[in-house]
């Protein structure tokens, strides 16, 4: 899949977060986020996502993974700290929110396709209305992407005629259609039947091979271990542990991480 990064991808760059991959695509600096009065969801969160790497956010439900992604896409306003996209502070109130979002693709847990539009219209909406692409060009590109994800015959269908896995793949195509710099995936397999999880994860693997920079909140530990360059364990809104996949899964430094992983192993999910 072609992504439109300004820089061509050096082959050996996906080594890990430690590899100096140039300026991070996404950087969080002491981010704090509270809901209502006193519920701290994110506390002093630091994170760096180098280009062409995959970062997996793991942690129990309610640990702040989804909130972190929503903050990065400015769907939530942070209370303190700063978030940078390609070195530019996007949490500055003077930043153009819509322009920032154009550079970030998001895939949601519940797909959030627009039910009143066909698959094709779902995908071409943003390219046409936001990027001003002519309809013919937008549709051609959309069909190309659909074809590649094995959804070629589905362009004219409405979302509710598709299986969950197909809907989620359409949502991925929709997020890619704007040629984003960064892709945020928020538990994209959590709402799927187990037998449909594979087809969606396969798409993510392919995107990784193409060099897409991604941040993935996930409960699929096996997948996180396999695909992530950097793993970030969140607990109660704090990044307790951050490291390479081998390090966090193989030799977790923190007690809580160990406990969390053990619970998952006991549940047979790793």
């Amino acid at each position, binding site marked *: 899949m072609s992504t439109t990064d300004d820089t061509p991808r050096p082959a050996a760059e996906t080594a890990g977060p430690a590899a100096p991959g140039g300026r991070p695509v996404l950087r969080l600096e002491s981010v704090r986020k509270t809901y209502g009065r006193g519920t701290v969801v994110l506390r002093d969160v630091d994170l760096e996502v180098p280009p062409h790497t995959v970062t997996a956010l793991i942690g129990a439900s309610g640990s702040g993974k989804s909130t972190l992604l929503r903050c990065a896409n400015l769907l939530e306003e942070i209370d303190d700290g700063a978030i940078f996209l390609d070195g530019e502070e996007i949490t500055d109130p003077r930043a153009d929110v*819509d322009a920032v979002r154009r550079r970030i693709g998001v895939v949601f847990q519940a797909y959030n396709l627009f039910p009143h539009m066909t698959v094709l219209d779902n995908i071409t909406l943003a390219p046409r209305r936001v990027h001003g692409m002519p309809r013919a060009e937008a549709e051609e590109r959309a069909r190309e992407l659909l074809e590649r994800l094995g959804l070629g015959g589905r362009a004219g269908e409405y979302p509710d005629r598709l299986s969950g896995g197909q809907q989620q793949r359409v949502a991925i195509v929709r997020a890619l259609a704007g040629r984003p710099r960064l892709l945020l995936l928020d538990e994209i397999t959590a709402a799927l039947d187990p037998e449909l999880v594979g087809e969606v994860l396969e798409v993510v693997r392919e995107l990784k091979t193409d060099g897409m920079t991604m941040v993935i909140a996930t409960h699929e530990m096996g997948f996180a271990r396999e695909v992530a360059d950097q793993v970030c364990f969140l607990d109660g809104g704090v990044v307790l542990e951050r490291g390479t996949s081998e390090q966090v899964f193989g030799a977790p430094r923190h007690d809580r991480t160990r406990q969390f992983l053990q619970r998952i192993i006991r549940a047979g999910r790793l």
Partner: protein
Amino acid sequence: MLKTRTAPEADGDGYVPSARRIERERFRRTRARRATAVAALSTLVTGAVLFLVITRSPGWPRTRETFFSPEYARMALPKVLDGLLLNLRLLVVCGAAVLVLGLLLAVARTLRGPVFFPLRALAAAYTDFFRGLPLIICLLMVVFGVPALRLQGVTTDPVLLGGTALVLTYSAYVAEVFRAGIESVHPSQRAAARSLGLSGGQALRFVVLPQAVRRVVPPLLNDLVSLQKDTGLVSIAGAVDAVYAAQIIAGKDFNFTPYVVAGLVFVALTIPMTRCTDWITARMDRRRAQGGLV
């Protein structure tokens, strides 16, 4: 009624319906037949009782003469139909104005952010006021109050003023219907639209409103049918519509048949409208469910 398939031929795979299935289907058929018979009989009995009670009542001959006189009906019908043209014109013009104004009000009420507070408050005050104000009072105030001001350049035409009053009241109702529709669209839809880079206005226009409007078509048409009836109220301003035409004739000899005629004409008008909306809604559902009709 329950659709029962009669013993299906083998579906090509050598399937033969079991005795159990055949027995079940026979039972369902019998039950359906019995239900139909009961319904038909009870309808007949009710109709017969009503007919007897009304025609045997002591005042029936006088009532029939006053309310259902064929001569008066024949005389009134052309005039009532003439007047009806005015009602139809009012319906079309006011209906369009009501939809536009209602939608604007609803959008104003759902705007977020402190900048829009005055707009939100104004729209809320408007809907609160005109939804509470009885239509007839609104009509009287506008139709007789505005000309009393003797403002230069402001019309005193009862039809225009009556139409304005209708729009004022009905747009408040319709705004609430639209607002309910807008609020029924799940916030995740807006989030998805914004995450694609659409601006707030674009998200509203391309994602929220199309879904909202579809959901409220049935209650909207309900309001339009109601508006159609209430166009008859402009007769109090002296505009000769179907109701006023009937009133003129009825007033001469105290025969109320013209009212009945006017009433039936209104009913005859709403029925096709309701069927039409049913059809539109069904078609919309079908298109969405089937897909592939791009």
